Every structure is written in structure tokens, then in C-alpha cells.
């Protein structure tokens, strides 16, 4: 019983008059703040965000907004409740003093905290050549402003759009362009669209989808340079196979970078791969010791997951940001025995060329794939991924009602290949195929899931025990 009363008191005091600071005022930050208030947190809450806008939703930016069905500045997230926060928008956090429990802001202000939640997410990876990237007509797509700018450029009726990178965002942009009747070229370094996220078998289906809808899809090539006209507007792109494509709008869809630079030198375990945290969302410091007052959630976090061999998962998924924010907020206001692990089963959706693509689990862990229902050719199917004799993930194309079933299979580590019969299993679904993911040691852009835990094949450190 030692100290129980004391720590109870501390938690009560924190709830009553503590100071909680959230850095990153977007999806994860907002949902966490709402949960804190729901849990009865009555102290001061400061929301710090470098964008000048209140939290908004990003998925519509590459879908409704590009189609012209919604306006970028109309994507503000609905509130589940009022959070009575002190909003510091349009100013970035630039530093963290862990021992003084203080966050430094870009305008010189400092904000003290008793508990800190970091939810700074990721940003679009820019075109590697800054000069070329600054040409007029070159876009990335991550923010509301990006969405607004790109939608205007598409509305102006460009002669050709070039999309560099055929991950989910790139594919959705290409799809929107075609729907608007615009000519579009997609350049992908891999063998097919979506290979990094879903593997080569599904990638082939995606490639056909692009081509059938009139996308000029170029795979296995890299864009080596962008060329501007004398007025500084992009005009053409040069490819590694020697070809040139003329385009007046170029969208760079090369994945994302984690927003952790502001933590450099703070002593927190933050780097290019995100911020490592325990299953309860508590951040690690650089010594691998878990902090007690700093939590992380959303795209910037990487945390171990029991279902996937305790690998550290970094997810760039909407649902993960919501679920992890909720867990982090709960744990920030709980005694250790009442804390919950974040064991959400990864899931995401995408919508392109009128097809609803959904996935659960961790497809890139899969070594084999089996089409359990429907057929790849009809683009209406469910397929499961196998890893060491168990179901590790599933993907559906226009067949989402089955997904909860497969989710349950993953959660119960069901055997792979599935021993049961399914209603509409076709001959092509009788034998598993190699899932055909690109070699993970070769860098690719835009993974939606990064496996960043220790693997014996991934020796980046030498362990040197001290001599007695």
C-alpha cells in the first residue's frame, strides 16, 4: 500500500489543476484532447500547431477535394465535445527541455507541462532537388494548402499532369485527374502501383486499373529531373529510361518524413523513423528508458505490437491516429495499473478509380497471398496474406463487408492457408502465391507501414559489452 495514497493524490491534482500540452494540432492531437476532457481533466490544456488552421481531416484532400466535391478549407474536423484549450496555432514547437518540462516555441515563448503529448505526424517528402521542386506547378499533397493549390491547378485544365510515385496518394491523385478528364502520366520506380503496401500480386491488379482508366503508367523508371520554362514554371520531366514527358503540373508523391527534427538534442528517442514508445504510448528517451510524462500518438509514433511479434510499427493510418490518441490520453490520466496498451489492428482504406480498397493487419509482413473470395480480374475480391503459417493481413477490393471476418482471423492467429471453404472461392484461390513484396532493404517511398523492430537480418548496431 506504500505510496498509493500519495500517487492517487498526485493524479487527482493533475486532473484538477495540471498542465497538459499537446504538440501537433491535427487528428491525433484533437482526439486526444477530447478524451482528456472526457476523463475529467480540468486543468490547463495547450494545443500547439504550426499550421494556422484548426484541426482538419486529410483523407478528403486526395479524394473529394481533387474531384471538386468538397473545398479544402471545409475539411475541419467535427468536435466530439468542447475542449476549452489555449490554442497556439501557426507557431511551431522548436525545442523540448525534458528536465525543466518545457516546450520551446518558434516565437520564443516557452510552455511548461506536467504531461506532454507529441502528435506532430509526418510531412510530404519534397522533391530532392530543391530548385526543381520550387518550380511553379510542382506540388506535394499533405496539407490543406497543398490540397487547395493542387485542386486549383487541376481546375485550370493543365495539358498533362505527372504524378511521381504510385503509392496510395499518388494513385488517388491519378484517379481524380482521369475523372476530371485530364491526361495523366504516373511514374513509379517499383514494378507496379501499391507494391510497397500490398505486394506485387495486388500491384498488378492496380496497374491494370490505371491502364484501363487511361493513365499513362510507367513502372520501373525514375524521374531524374524536372525542367522549367523561362518563367519558372514546370514544363517537362526527364526519366531514367531516357524518355521525356511534357507536363505542366507535377505532383510529387514520394511518401512522408516524420516531424521529429524539433526534438533533436532533447534527449528523447526521436529520429527519422519516428518516436519510439511503449505499448502504452509512453515515449522512450535516447537511453531506451521509458519516460513517465511524455506520450506520443499518430503518424509520428512507433510502438511494439504483440500480434506482430512485438515489432515496432509505424502506421500512417487515420484509424491508428484516432485509436492511439485515445489510448495515450487515457494513459496520461491513469495510474500505471489502469493503463491500456495500444493494440489496435492496423486498418486503412483507399478509394481510387471508383474501387474501394481496404486492408487490415500488416500486409508487408506476408510472404504468401491467397485470393479467398472473388477474383482479381473482376477487381472484386478478398485476399489474405500468410506469414509462417498464420494469417497476418487481408485486403479487399470492393468487398469490404468481409473485412471484419478477416480481422478476427488475424486477431486469433488463424492458420494460413485458411482450411475453410469460402462462398465464392475461384480456381485462382486454391493455391497461395508468393506475395511478392519488394526487398525491404531497398529503400522505397511511401510505405504505409514500416517494420522497424529488431530483425536479425537488419544488423545496424554492434553490441560491445564493457570489459571487466
Amino acid at each position: 500500500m506504500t505510496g498509493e495514497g500519495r500517487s492517487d493524490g498526485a493524479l487527482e491534482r493533475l486532473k484538477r489543476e495540471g498542465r497538459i500540452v499537446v504538440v501537433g494540432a491535427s487528428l491525433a492531437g484533437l482526439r486526444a484532447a477530447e478524451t482528456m476532457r472526457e476523463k475529467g481533466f480540468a486543468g490547463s490544456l495547450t494545443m500547439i500547431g504550426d499550421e494556422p488552421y484548426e484541426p482538419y481531416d486529410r483523407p478528403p484532400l486526395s479524394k473529394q477535394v481533387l474531384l471538386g466535391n468538397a473545398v479544402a478549407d471545409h475539411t475541419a474536423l467535427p468536435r466530439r465535445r468542447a475542449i476549452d484549450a489555449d490554442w497556439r496555432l501557426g507557431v511551431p514547437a522548436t525545442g523540448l527541455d525534458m528536465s525543466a518540462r518545457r516546450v520551446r516555441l518558434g516565437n520564443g515563448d516557452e510552455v511548461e507541462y506536467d504531461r506532454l503529448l507529441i502528435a506532430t505526424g509526418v510531412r510530404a517528402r519534397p522533391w530532392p532537388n530543391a530548385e526543381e521542386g520550387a518550380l511553379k506547378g510542382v506540388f506535394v499533397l499533405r496539407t490543406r494548402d497543398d490540397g487547395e493549390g493542387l485542386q486549383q491547378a487541376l481546375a485550370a485544365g493543365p495539358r498533362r499532369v505527372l504524378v511521381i510515385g504510385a503509392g496510395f496518394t499518388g494513385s488517388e491523385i491519378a484517379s481524380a485527374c482521369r475523372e476530371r478528364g485530364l491526361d495523366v502520366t504516373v511514374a513509379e520506380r517499383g514494378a507496379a502501383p501499391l507494391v510497397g503496401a500490398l505486394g506485387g500480386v495486388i500491384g498488378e491488379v492496380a496497374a491494370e486499373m490505371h491502364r484501363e482508366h487511361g493513365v499513362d503508367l510507367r513502372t520501373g523508371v525514375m524521374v531524374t529531373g524536372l525542367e522549367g520554362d523561362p518563367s519558372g514554371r514546370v514544363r517537362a520531366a526527364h526519366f531514367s529510361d531516357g524518355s521525356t514527358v511534357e507536363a505542366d503540373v507535377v505532383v510529387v508523391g514520394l511518401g512522408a518524413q516524420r516531424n521529429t527534427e524539433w526534438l533533436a538534442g532533447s534527449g528523447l528517442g526521436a529520429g527519422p523513423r519516428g518516436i519510439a514508445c511503449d505499448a502504452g504510448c509512453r515515449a522512450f528517451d535516447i537511453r531506451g528508458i521509458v519516460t513517465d510524462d511524455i506520450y506520443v500518438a499518430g503518424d509520428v509514433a512507433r510502438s511494439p505490437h504483440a500480434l506482430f511479434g512485438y515489432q515496432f510499427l509505424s502506421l500512417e493510418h487515420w484509424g491508428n491516429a484516432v485509436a492511439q490518441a485515445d489510448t495515450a490520453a487515457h494513459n496520461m490520466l491513469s495510474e500505471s495499473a489502469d493503463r491500456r496498451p495500444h493494440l489496435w489492428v492496423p486498418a486503412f482504406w483507399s478509394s481510387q478509380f471508383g474501387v474501394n480498397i481496404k486492408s487490415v493487419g500488416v500486409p508487408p509482413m506476408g510472404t504468401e497471398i491467397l485470393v479467398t473470395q472473388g477474383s482479381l480480374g473482376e477487381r472484386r475480391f478478398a485476399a489474405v496474406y500468410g506469414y509462417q503459417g498464420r494469417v497476418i493481413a487481408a485486403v479487399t477490393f470492393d468487398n469490404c463487408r468481409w473485412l471484419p471476418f478477416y480481422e478476427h482471423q488475424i486477431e486469433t492467429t488463424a492458420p494460413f492457408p485458411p482450411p475453410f471453404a469460402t462462398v465464392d472461392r475461384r480456381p485462382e484461390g486454391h493455391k497461395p502465391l508468393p506475395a511478392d513484396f519488394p526487398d525491404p532493404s531497398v529503400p522505397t517511398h511511401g510505405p504505409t507501414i514500416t517494420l522497424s523492430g529488431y530483425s536479425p537480418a537488419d544488423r545496424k548496431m554492434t553490441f560491445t559489452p564493457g570489459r571487466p
Partner: protein
Amino acid sequence: MRLVVDLNRCQGYAQCAFLAPDVFAMHGDESLLYNPEAAAEQRENVERAVAACPVGAILLELTDEDMAEMAAPDAVAGAGSGGAR
């Protein structure tokens, strides 16, 4: 009037598109497109859609009255009133 649909949860049953066709629309067989900032006069339709969605995927922003109500009988939630002001 702001809303968001959790498209992980949405199973494309199209109930919402039936009840509030000016806000929700199907795109292809089962992809849902919606206007995240619907016109105020759609409120009744959207509320019907929220209630009818079989998987509870639609989150509609509370009105100021809703929030005030949440703040008032806070005897249950203890110190939870900090949020709604």
C-alpha cells in the same frame, strides 16, 4: 455543419446516401464520398443518416446546445465540465 465518416468502419451500406443524398454519395459500388461541411439545412437529414448507419460510422459535430447540455449535468462525470464552456 461538420461531419466525418470513419471509413474503416463504413461498410458501404448506402443508408446515408439514401437519407441525405445531398451530403453522401456512393462512388462506384461501395466507396462513399461525402461533403465534410454540409449545409445547415441538411441537419435533419444528416441526423437521420447518423441514426440509420448500421455501423455507427458517421460523426456529426455537436451543436452549441448539445455542448451546453453536456456541460450542465456534470455531476456524474465529476470534474469533466472543464471542456464545455
